[in-house]
C-alpha cells in the first residue's frame, strides 16, 4: 500500500513539473493554453531522440529536453501566441486545440504512432526496500529532482526580484505595467520557463506515463485539473493539487482498475461545481 502511495507521489511530482508552467501563464496573461501538453511531448521526443540517435546519456538528455521546449515556446509565443491574448477564452481554447491537433498529427507523421521507450541507466533500474516499502529507484530519482525543482521554484517565486515582479504582474497586470514592470517580457520569459519545465516533465515522465503522439490530448485534462484545483497565484497550490491528483489516480487505477480514468474526470467536475468561482476567475480589476 505504501508502495502505491510512493508511486502516486512520484506521479504527482511529474504532473506538478508538467503543470506549473501552465498555471503561471494562465494566471499571468489569463490565457488558456491547452497546447501545454504539446510542449511536454516535444521534450519527451527530444529526450528519446537524443538518447537513441546520438547516444546522449540520460542525465544530459533532460536539460536538452528543457532547452528545446523552452526555445520552441519562446518562438511560438512571439509569433502566434501574442495576438491571442486579447481574444475571448473560447477563441483561445479553439486556437490551442488547433495547435494540439497539429502537434498530434505532425508527431504521428514524423515519428510514427508507436509508444516510445527510453533505456534507463542501470543505476536507475530496479527497486529496493526500506522497512517493507518497495521503492523504485527511478521513482525516487524523479521525486528528488522534482522536489528540488519545486523548492527552487518556490524560492524564486517568493524571494527573488523576478518572482516579486511576476507576482505583481499576476495580481494586476495593468498596475504592474504602470509601475514600469515589463510585463510582456516577463511573460515571454515565464512562458519559456513553463514550456521548458513541461518539456523536462515530459522527458521525466516517459517511464511513468508513456509517450506517444496522443500525449497532449490524453494528459490535457490532468494539467487542467492541476491548474483549476491549485489556483494560479502560487506554486504551492498547483503542487498540492498535483500530489492529490497523482495519488488519487494511481491508487484509483490500482485498486479499482475497471473504473479507469473515470475518477479523475468525476473529481474535476465535482471540484469545478463546488468551487466554480474560486478557481479560474481571480479577482481582477
Amino acid at each position, binding site marked *: 500500500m505504501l508502495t502505491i502511495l510512493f508511486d502516486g507521489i512520484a506521479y504527482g511530482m511529474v504532473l506538478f513539473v508538467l503543470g506549473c508552467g501552465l498555471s503561471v501563464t494562465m494566471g499571468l496573461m489569463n490565457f488558456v493554453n491547452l497546447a501545454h501538453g504539446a510542449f511536454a511531448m516535444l521534450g519527451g521526443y527530444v529526450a528519446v531522440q537524443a538518447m537513441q540517435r546520438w547516444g546522449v546519456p540520460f542525465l544530459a538528455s533532460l536539460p536538452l529536453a528543457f532547452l528545446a521546449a523552452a526555445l520552441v515556446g519562446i518562438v511560438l509565443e512571439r509569433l502566434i501566441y501574442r495576438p491571442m491574448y486579447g481574444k475571448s*477564452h*473560447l477563441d483561445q481554447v479553439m486556437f490551442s*486545440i*488547433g495547435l494540439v491537433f497539429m502537434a498530434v498529427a505532425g508527431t504521428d507523421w514524423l515519428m510514427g504512432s508507436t509508444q516510445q521507450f527510453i533505456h534507463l541507466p542501470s543505476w536507475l533500474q530496479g527497486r529496493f526496500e526500506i522497512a517493507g516499502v518497495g521503492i523504485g529507484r527511478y521513482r525516487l530519482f524523479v521525486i528528488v529532482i522534482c522536489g528540488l525543482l519545486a523548492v527552487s521554484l518556490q524560492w524564486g517565486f517568493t524571494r527573488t526580484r523576478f518572482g516579486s515582479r511576476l507576482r505583481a504582474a499576476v495580481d494586476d497586470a495593468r498596475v504592474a505595467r504602470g509601475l514600469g514592470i515589463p510585463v510582456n517580457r516577463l511573460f515571454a520569459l515565464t512562458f519559456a520557463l513553463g514550456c521548458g519545465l513541461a518539456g523536462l516533465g515530459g522527458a521525466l515522465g516517459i517511464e511513468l506515463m508513456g509517450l506517444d503522439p496522443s500525449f497532449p490530448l490524453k494528459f490535457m485534462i490532468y494539467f487542467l485539473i492541476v491548474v483549476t484545483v491549485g489556483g494560479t497565484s502560487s506554486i504551492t497550490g498547483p503542487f498540492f493539487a498535483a500530489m492529490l491528483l497523482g495519488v488519487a489516480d494511481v491508487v484509483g487505477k490500482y485498486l479499482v482498475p475497471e*473504473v479507469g480514468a*473515470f475518477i479523475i474526470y468525476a473529481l474535476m467536475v465535482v471540484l469545478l461545481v463546488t468551487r466554480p*468561482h474560486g*478557481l479560474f476567475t481571480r479577482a481582477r480589476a
Partner: protein
Amino acid sequence: MRAETFERRVRQALYVARRWHPAEIAFWLLAFAAFLLFPRNLLLLNEIAILALFALSLDLILGYAGIVSLGHAAFLGMGAYAAGLFAKHVGADPLAGLVVGMGMAGLLGLVTSPLVLRGTDLTRLMITLGVALILYELANSFGSLTGGADGLQGITMGPVLGLFDFDIFGRTAYLYSLSVLFVLFLVARRVVHSPFGLSLRAVRDNSLRASASGVPNARRLAAAYTLSAAYAGAAGALLAQTTQFVSLDVLDFHRSADLMLVLIIGGAGYLYGGLVGAIAFKLLQDLIATFTPQYWMFWIGLFLVLFVLGGREIIHGAAKAAAGRLARLGKGAAR
C-alpha cells in the same frame, strides 16, 4: 398605453423576423433537390445533413444563449447509443428510436444543466469537456451494454413510417435525415424568433440587465440547454440509424472540436451558420481526404488556428458583402 405600443412593436419585430426570405426557400429547395442532382453522393449528403443538425444544436446554445461547450459530443453519443440500443432491444421503428434518442439526450442535458450554468466561460468549457469525457469512459467501461471499443453492432432498422426501407445507396437515409433536419430547423426557427428566443439573447448580451428586467436567467438557459441537447441527440440517433452502427467515436473529443470548427466556419447566431458550415466542412474533409487520407487532424488543427488568427473576419466579411447584395435583391433582412 405606452406599454401597449411597445408590445405591439415587439410583436411586429418578431413577426418581421419570422418571415421567410426568398434565399431561405431557395436553400431548402436546393437541399431537397440535391437528392436528384447528386445521386452518387447521397451518403456524403446524409453525413452533411446529420452534421448540420448537430451544428444547429450547438448554435442554439452558443449563438443564441451564449453558452460555450466543448463537450457537445456527450449528447450526440447519448442519442446515438440510446437509439442504437432501442433498435437492438426494443423495436426497429426509426421514428420511435429518434424520439427515444432525443428524449435521453434531452434528459442528460436537463440533468447536467445545473453544472453548466455556473461559473464563467472557462469553467463551462472545462465542465462540458469533463462531462463528455466521463460519458466516454462510461461507454467504454460498460462494454456488455455498449459493446465497448468494438462498438454497438447488430442494429437492424425497420422502414421509415413503415414504407421506406433503408438501402445501401443512402437514398432513404438522406431523405430521412434531411426531413428530420428540416422539421427540427422549423421548430428551432420558431423558437429563436419567439419571446423565449428574445429573452435568451437578452441573457447572452447582458445577463445582469436581463435578470433585472424579470427574465428568469437560470431557467431560460436550462431550457435552452436541454433543447440543444435533444437536438444533438437527434443527430446522434440519425447517425446510429443510418449507419446502423455506433462506436465510441461518437463520444470522442474530436467530435466536439470538429463541431466548433463547423460553427466557426459558418458563423454562430443565425441558424444557417451551422448548415453552411457543415456543408463547407464536409466538402473540405472530402477534398483533403482525396489528397492525404491520414493526417486529417493536422489540417483541421491548421484551419482552427488560421480561423482564429484572422481568417474568420476575412471570410465573414466576404460573406456579409455577398449577403448584403442578395438582401438588396430580395428586399428584407436575411437574419
